[in-house]
């Protein structure tokens, strides 16, 4: 199960598992984001390279427009994957 929701304060809330079987759904949602945004990963249990690719593509598109995504509340396992992939160079992570 994977869910993409936008909270009342504008935060993007991801939950569940962002694996290859859910990356197309995630891509469609992120394609709609045209302004800088905070992505709250508090309830995201897992991400694979398919999910990383979705976030990367969104960040690249937004950066080209002078905007970007800020990622918050990621669990330690996901944080480790981001560090190995050096996505800490690509995203603002809190």
């Amino acid at each position, binding site marked *: 199960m994977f869910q993409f929701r936008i909270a009342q304060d504008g935060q993007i809330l991801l939950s569940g*598992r962002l*694996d*290859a*079987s859910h990356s197309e759904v995630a891509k469609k949602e992120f394609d709609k984001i045209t302004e800088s945004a905070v992505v709250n990963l508090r309830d995201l249990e*897992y991400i*694979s*390279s*398919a999910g*990383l*690719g979705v976030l*990367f*593509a969104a*960040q*690249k598109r937004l*950066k080209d427009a002078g905007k970007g995504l800020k990622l918050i509340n990621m669990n*330690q*396992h996901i944080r*480790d*994957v981001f560090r*190995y*992939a*050096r996505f800490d*160079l*690509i995203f603002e992570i809190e």
Partner: protein
Amino acid sequence: MPSSDFNHIEESFAKDFLSLKAIFEFVGTFSTSNNLDDSQTFSIKFAVEEVFTNMVKYNPGSTEVAISLSRDGKNVKVGFVDVEEQPFDITTKEEVNPNLSIEKRRPGGLGIFLIKKLMDKVEYAHDGIYSRITLTKIVE
């Protein structure tokens, strides 16, 4: 037909991304039986997804992948067997450079790069019919 004992389980999965849910449950069952911690389980699930989805995307010539999980002391081994005409050795694939800026980075290749970070050994063999990939994770 799935087979299992305490330290070894194996099952075949249809080559479809929708098999991932069952594959994660398969890994979860093994992890629980073998008292693997959350970090070890995350790493194994990640590596299993990456190898499996590579087989789905790049080898459409077969319909199933056989996956096995076994533990021998500190070594957890994950095996994949797939019918593959043209060998595709993931251990020799050119690695991505994760230190490039976002402008210079390209998508793709990250999965295999991360498998090598999260697992301790990656082996590939091809006997003319079957590709066999074996991943090893050393656990305490």
